[in-house]
């Protein structure tokens, strides 16, 4: 299988700031790579370089066999891009937006029109097709934007944080749409701040930090590295914190984190439900009163904490919240 996207030692600097610091990766045809990282990690810069919006300062990259610098025009006929903010015209209706994009892909007037209707139906926007995008909800805007990326049925797709800022229902709907695309054989590069999203959609995940890859692998490989679920305990008395910590440490597959102010202890474990059952049994035997106990999936914060030893400082609170 050949690679639809290749990047070798990509470098991009903005004055003093190095946005990309020698990033290299390849995305085989028909697979999905998720770039996972907080704001400012270099995810969007990577997408902008690969979609020819930005010239790299160093390194080289190809998409669908075209060089991002030397063969930009031809490259653009093979890609679809959906950005972080919906790049559609607010004053135009959904149908007019998609038709315009079709014409700019040079599909011709008739095919552009037909394709617009087809996509509106597919993304459940038929009722809103002839209303200006101005009146669309956040989820509808993302859907019309995603539809825009698909107008020419391009073999390689770039989705830059497609669900950031969406409510859980709209996010689930968008995930379904993206999963369908992937099943149909598109190559996809996706950026996200949500571990869960990467897990759900991607074949391979690359964790980026300060323009460098700090980990890569399948979701399972990454989870083995950072631990699967987290057990989170809250005790009632500060005096019991140490006992609880020691008990939890016996099951932990990584660092145990203690937050004394909130009497909270967190640790990654492998077999979540079973570990939680045993931990609670042992704590009950030891007479430790547990106020709250639960399992949760690793967040981007956990990934970062495990891989870099520091918090993902750029992560926006909303994204952190949503990933829980």
């Amino acid at each position, binding site marked *: 299988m050949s690679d639809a996207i290749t990047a070798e030692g990509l470098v991009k600097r903005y004055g003093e700031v190095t946005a990309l610091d020698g990033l290299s990766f390849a995305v085989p045809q028909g697979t999905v790579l998720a770039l996972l990282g907080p704001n400012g990690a270099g995810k969007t810069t990577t997408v902008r370089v690969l*979609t020819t*919006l930005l010239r790299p300062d160093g390194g080289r990259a190809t998409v669908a066999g075209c060089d991002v610098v030397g063969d930009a025009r031809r490259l*653009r006929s093979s*890609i679809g891009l959906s950005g972080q*903010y919906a790049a559609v015209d607010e*004053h*135009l209706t959904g149908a*007019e937006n998609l038709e315009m994009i079709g*014409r700019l892909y*040079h599909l011709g007037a008739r095919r552009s029109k037909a394709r617009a209707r087809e996509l509106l139906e597919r993304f459940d926007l038929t009722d809103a097709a002839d209303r200006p995008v101005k009146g669309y909800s956040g989820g509808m805007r993302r859907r019309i934007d995603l539809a825009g990326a698909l107008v020419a049925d391009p073999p390689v797709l770039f989705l830059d944080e497609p669900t950031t800022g969406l409510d859980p229902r709209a996010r689930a709907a968008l995930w379904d749409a993206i999963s369908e695309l992937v099943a149909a054989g598109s190559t996809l590069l996706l950026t996200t701040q949500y571990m869960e999203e990467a897990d759900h959609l991607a074949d391979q995940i690359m964790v980026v930090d300060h323009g460098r890859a700090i980990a890569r692998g399948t979701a399972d490989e990454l989870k083995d590295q950072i631990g699967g679920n987290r057990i989170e305990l809250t005790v009632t008395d500060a005096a019991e914190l140490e006992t609880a910590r020691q008990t939890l440490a016996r099951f932990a597959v990584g660092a145990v984190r203690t937050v004394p102010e909130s009497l909270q202890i967190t640790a990654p474990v492998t077999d979540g439900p079973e570990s939680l059952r045993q931990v609670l049994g042992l704590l009950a035997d030891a007479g430790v009163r547990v106020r709250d106990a639960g399992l949760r999936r690793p967040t981007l914060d956990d990934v970062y904490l495990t891989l870099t030893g520091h918090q993902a400082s750029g992560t926006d609170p909303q994204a952190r919240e949503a990933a829980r």
Partner: protein
Amino acid sequence: MNALTMPIADGWTIARRNTLKIRRSPDLLGSAIMFPIVFVLMFAYVFGSVIDVPGMSYREFLLPGIFVQAVIMSAQITGYTLTLDLQKGIFDRFRSLPMAPSGVLIGQTVSDLLMNLASLVVMAVMGLIVGWRVHTSPYEAVLGFGLLLLFAYAFSWFTAAVALALRTPESFNNIATMLSFPLMFISNAFLDSSALPTPLRVVAEWNPVSTITQAVRDLFGNTSTAMKTSDAWPLHHAIPAALLWIAVILVVFIPLATRLYKKAVSA
């Protein structure tokens, strides 16, 4: 599609988009259609009742000036909408498509030309109502409107360059107002410039707005032999001078706007 037809086809697609946009933005439509109407009425009845120009009615003298002024105002829509688009992600979309990059600015200026055409029609009708007439042949009348549209198109490229250098709608509006008011008023558009004090008179004589206005007056026959004619070359040979101004504006500002566009969107 080849290198020649693609910018035209893509420009047309963008122009269609802008035309739809303008139709749905009452504020833009208002400034292009309502302003000229208000100005015709205001100048014709307020200034017209106190200002005398020798040998002809002030309204006949005024209308070509109002035409030029309206064209300058609505050409600013090019710059304004570009700054609005810059704030959004739409240029990223355009740049990720296999379209001709020049299509964006071509489309923008062409749609504003269409809008200027509409606004000129409204004004000509208003003019006829308040007593303005064309005293030359229909052929020259057509040339007069053609010259106005050419100037409108060139001026759109100028406002595009200014907008792409400034990049925000607020700063564009401020600078555009600051530039266009002296341009319109230190000219012969509303007054007989030969009556101005010398420094202002010299500025007015060499102001491109005066040249265009004079050329349009010549073509419509809105002139009077009783009026003192200026010795300044651009007013004496207004039609070739107007064409020269238009050519210079296009030659300077098309490449400049194109370069500024590339810089503004790749930041």
